[in-house]
């Protein structure tokens, strides 16, 4: 039985970057809604033949746990590290709140992780293999911004979830969050074509623009034994944005 690192949202953005960073030393189970992009990420990783794919829409919750449990059995693998990088973003104004979209965002950003963690912490399914959970949260859980309340709430929920889960699963499993500030990825590419937007990002980040690799570096640290006494924490990777707000 082989042990894997499971990465959701692996087809793009931070997830893809984390996958490429971890691939040389680990066997990965890459999950995403987009099968084609997922396959491309796998092929961009070191030793692509080692890694497994799980095509799944995490905005629908029904059957996530069963599907994952079935996959672990079929492939004869266990999950040692889980990195939840799947996330969706959307501007919502209170006067025009669309509950359907809010639900979808919470499903992907938080509830799908809860559904995934259930089988991963069941002995009969994952054989006690789980050692760490790393959730990609956001600095928006700490900073207010117009139109961001729904997204911020979903990430604030992730932070608080991690806090209690860290206590519940200790000492076997460590649970931490990474809170990036805004970094150019597929999710926000259109904003980064605007020079004014780029200038405002530069002005509010004392260390300049961030890169997905900066997030991958921190995730790699948290999902390794070098962080063996770190749990329940929010690690902010934001180029000094929060310190200077």
């Amino acid at each position, binding site marked *: 039985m082989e042990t894997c690192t499971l990465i959701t949202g692996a087809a793009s953005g931070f997830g893809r970057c984390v996958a490429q960073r971890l691939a040389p030393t680990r066997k990965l189970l890459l999950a995403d809604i987009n099968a084609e992009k997922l396959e491309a990420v796998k092929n961009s990783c070191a030793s692509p033949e080692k890694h497994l794919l799980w095509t799944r829409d995490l905005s629908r919750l029904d059957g996530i746990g069963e599907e994952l449990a079935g996959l672990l059995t079929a492939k004869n693998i266990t999950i040692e590290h889980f990195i939840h990088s799947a996330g969706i973003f959307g501007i919502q104004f209170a006067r025009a709140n669309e509950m359907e979209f809010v639900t979808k965002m919470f499903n992907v950003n938080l509830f799908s992780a809860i559904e995934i963690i259930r089988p991963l912490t069941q002995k009969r399914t994952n054989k006690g293999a789980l050692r760490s959970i790393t959730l990609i949260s956001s600095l928006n859980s700490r900073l207010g911004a117009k139109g961001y309340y729904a997204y911020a709430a979903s990430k604030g929920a992730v932070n608080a979830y991690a806090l209690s889960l860290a*206590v519940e699963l*200790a*000492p076997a499993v460590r649970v931490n969050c990474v809170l990036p500030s805004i970094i150019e990825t597929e999710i926000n590419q259109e904003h980064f074509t605007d020079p004014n937007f780029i200038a405002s990002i530069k002005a509010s980040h004392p260390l300049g623009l961030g890169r997905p690799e900066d997030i991958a570096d921190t995730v790699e640290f948290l999902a390794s034994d070098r962080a063996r006494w*770190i749990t*329940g924490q929010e690690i902010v990777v934001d*180029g000094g944005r929060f310190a200077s707000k």
Partner: protein
Amino acid sequence: MSENYTLITGASSGFGKSIAQKLAPGRRLILAGRSDQKLEAVRKSCEAPEKHILWLRDFTRLDGIGAELTSLLAEKNAVVENFVHSAGIISIQYARAIEMASVTQLFNVNVFSAMEIIKPLVQKKVNHGALRSITFISSIAARVGASGYSVYSASKGAVNSLSLSLAVELAPAVRVNAVLPGIVGTEMNTTHFANPEFVEFVKATHPLGFGKPEDVADAVEFLTSDRSRWITGQEIVVDGGRCVFAPPRAVAAN
């Protein structure tokens, strides 16, 4: 051509020693502390001991720290790329019997000496713009209250806030962060750890069990490396879950 060094204060024991041993293989170190013998022993325990420099200094006294460091750098043709402030003292002080002299001493070591050290390190004529990171060893005592710890807590709270504003002032050239360890057995608290009740308390309040100095050194290594190049002004808690955990006795009290 000057060589780049990582300066570690409090290097003769505890976290500082462990950090020195962890970083020695990849870097040149300046090990600072007040005990000649202990410091020399740490240097010898490091990889490539001949690479590393000692700086004998008592940080309870502030006068001349900056000048001393400045001339050391000039004499050794060294610049400091990373500064790790691990020097720290603890003293239990109850409000009713606070002794200001020992409060001052504690703040001198834990906070003010770092300011005196940083001054020359950010002066172009002294350090030639070489500084890239500052990492303070703070403590979760800045977040968790305990009887008799008010002065120590205050000094660590001061360190956290110092780090926050320095991070903004010195960006983008220098990153500034603090590491907040939980209770870890070191030379500083061997007497506590000799008491089985204390050991039991630590066990019960740290969900991941006992920490080791190496756990703190791992975090420091990360923060003083390019792998954390977009992290600044942060408090990194390394405490086995202590801060996020409500101990059973607190629950029972509700």
